[in-house]
């Protein structure tokens, strides 16, 4: 038998870069994303660190001798109509807004990933039925429904607030995961596994899921930015955090009073800037992550 002369292809012995190093390279390459990441780390460390020493009850205690004061050396950002220190409320508010944003993002993420995986993996009639439910939730007037539920739920708490938000926010990530799962299930590895008799749940959660991890991280980061905005919007309207638990939204809510809006900028403007910066920074990091997961768009 004649030996065909096949050149041994030079296999690059260098390992392919890991996802973490790709992401890191992308963020470092994009100066704005790097700045955003540093800003987020500092802000997060600062608000969670400082609030360990701050007493929330002390800050939200009404002090009638110090109402509506402009910024001074005693109150760095002045006080509100109850004589409460704005700077302290801003720190605690940022912490609360971040916490609820992360909580809602995680809860919607878990629901969306499981629902989307099941729907996309099985496909066919199951997928069709599950997606009609998603379609229904998508056309609901989100803001109004959430406001009504917040208004009528008995024993309203932060938990019920995040549950209500989650109940009407899980569809976005679900659709993304489902369409990816539809593609993944056709791939050889999933088909091979199925032929070998691996149970469906095992293929879904131990084989397909890891392949979707990057898209999940990207979607959840972008969702976090949106959820911070939604929380502050709902609290602004008076249907989120109560005043006793300050958030960025409750600080902004003071601006619903025309006099506060016109004459006392120090109450609402810092919170407005903070919401804007947080959302922009989270989005910047999210966009850099998105580029890192798509080889065609990478800059690094």
């Amino acid at each position, binding site marked *: 038998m004649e030996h065909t002369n096949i050149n041994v292809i030079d296999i690059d012995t260098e390992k392919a870069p890991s996802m973490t190093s790709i992401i890191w390279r992308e963020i470092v390459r994009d100066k704005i994303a790097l700045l955003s990441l540093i800003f987020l780390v500092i802000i997060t460390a600062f608000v969670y660190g400082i609030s360990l020493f701050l007493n929330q009850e002390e800050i939200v205690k009404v002090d009638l001798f110090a109402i509506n004061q402009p910024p001074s050396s005693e109150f760095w950002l002045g006080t509100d109509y109850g004589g409460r220190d704005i700077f302290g409320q801003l720190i605690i508010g940022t912490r609360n807004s971040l916490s609820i944003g992360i909580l809602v993002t995680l809860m919607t993420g878990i629901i969306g990933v499981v629902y989307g995986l099941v729907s996309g993996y099985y496909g066919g009639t199951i997928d069709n039925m599950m997606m*009609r439910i998603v*379609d*229904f939730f998508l*056309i*609901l*007037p*989100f*803001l*109004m*429904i959430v*406001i*009504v*539920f917040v*208004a*009528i739920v008995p024993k309203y708490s932060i938990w019920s607030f995040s549950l209500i938000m989650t109940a009407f926010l899980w569809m976005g990530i679900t659709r993304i995961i489902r369409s990816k799962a539809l593609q993944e299930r056709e791939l050889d590895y999933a088909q091979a596994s199925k032929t070998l008799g691996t149970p469906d749940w095992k293929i879904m959660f131990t084989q397909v899921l890891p392949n979707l991890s990057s898209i999940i991280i990207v979607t959840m980061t972008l969702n976090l*930015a949106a959820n911070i*905005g939604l929380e*502050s*919007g709902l609290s*602004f*309207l*008076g*249907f989120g955090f109560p005043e006793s638990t300050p958030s960025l939204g409750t600080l*902004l809510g003071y*601006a*619903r009073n*025309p006099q506060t*809006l*016109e004459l006392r*900028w120090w109450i*609402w403007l810092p919170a*407005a800037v903070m*919401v*804007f910066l947080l*959302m*922009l920074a989270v*989005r910047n990091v999210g966009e850099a992550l998105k580029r890192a997961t798509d080889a065609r768009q990478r800059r690094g």
Partner: protein
Amino acid sequence: MWKFIVRRLLITMPQIILLSVLVFIMAQMMPGDALSGLIDPNIDPAAMEEQREKLGLNDPWYEQYADWITAALQGDLGQSFRFKMPVEELISQRLVNTFWLSLVTLIFTYIIAIPLGIISGRYNDTLRDQLISGYTYIGFATPLFIFALVMLWLFGYTLGWFPTGGSVEPGLDPGSFAYIMSKFNHLLLPAISMALITTVNTVQYLRSEIIDTKQKDFIITARAKGAPESRVYNKHILRNSLLPIAAYFGFEITGLIGGTVFIETIYSYPGMGLLFMESVLQRDYSVVTSVVLLFGIASVLGALLSDIILSLVDPRIRIK
């Protein structure tokens, strides 16, 4: 074509029914009932119970649902206890204001989006494009209500260029020229604030549509035939890129609904959004359920409209 529309309509009906069930459940969860706002608190509880029985409030839920939905279909949405008038009259008063606000916002949205999208797509990756892309990027990250607050503070209070609340100057004769101008003046700032934020989607979409179309074969052919650049852009590219934008018109309506709640609250503009907020706060629940139901139906119809336009524009959607 018709098959697609009929199938799409068949999905719409169950959606509206489900929506009405959800709104009904919400109404049931609300404290109080249709009577609690109507009667004098000094009245005898036994007499009240009798009234309840007569109005069918003690019936099982499915009979109550059937009663409620038949009344709603006939245009009877109940009584507002705050205004002591039928809800449908109250809504029709406010709906006019929201209609004008939405219309002006939509007009501004497209006035801003179309030129910016065209410039950005035609001269992509130049300084002009980068400026416009920067604006859309920041627009995406800015919550509507914060932008509206800053606009009101800046242009309404600090500079005093625009009125800061209401929908019209009091004391003007309805129908007179001054009245119409005052109405328009009150609309302007809220509509511009909303349009500047909601338009960024359309700008970005138009930009990528144009960049995609630019590389298609028929454009290369048009250029090869010697068509002047202005004709290539205004006729060949624009026509093909604007159609998908038209299809998203229905979804724009859905987006406006959430927006009006914020905008009308901030600018104290007496439309449906403000009516909704006031009614929730004052627990005028028959108004709340009616507004949610109406806006829900508007969203369903908006999505339907978009899908139908989209299927007219893009035949691939019809195939499945």
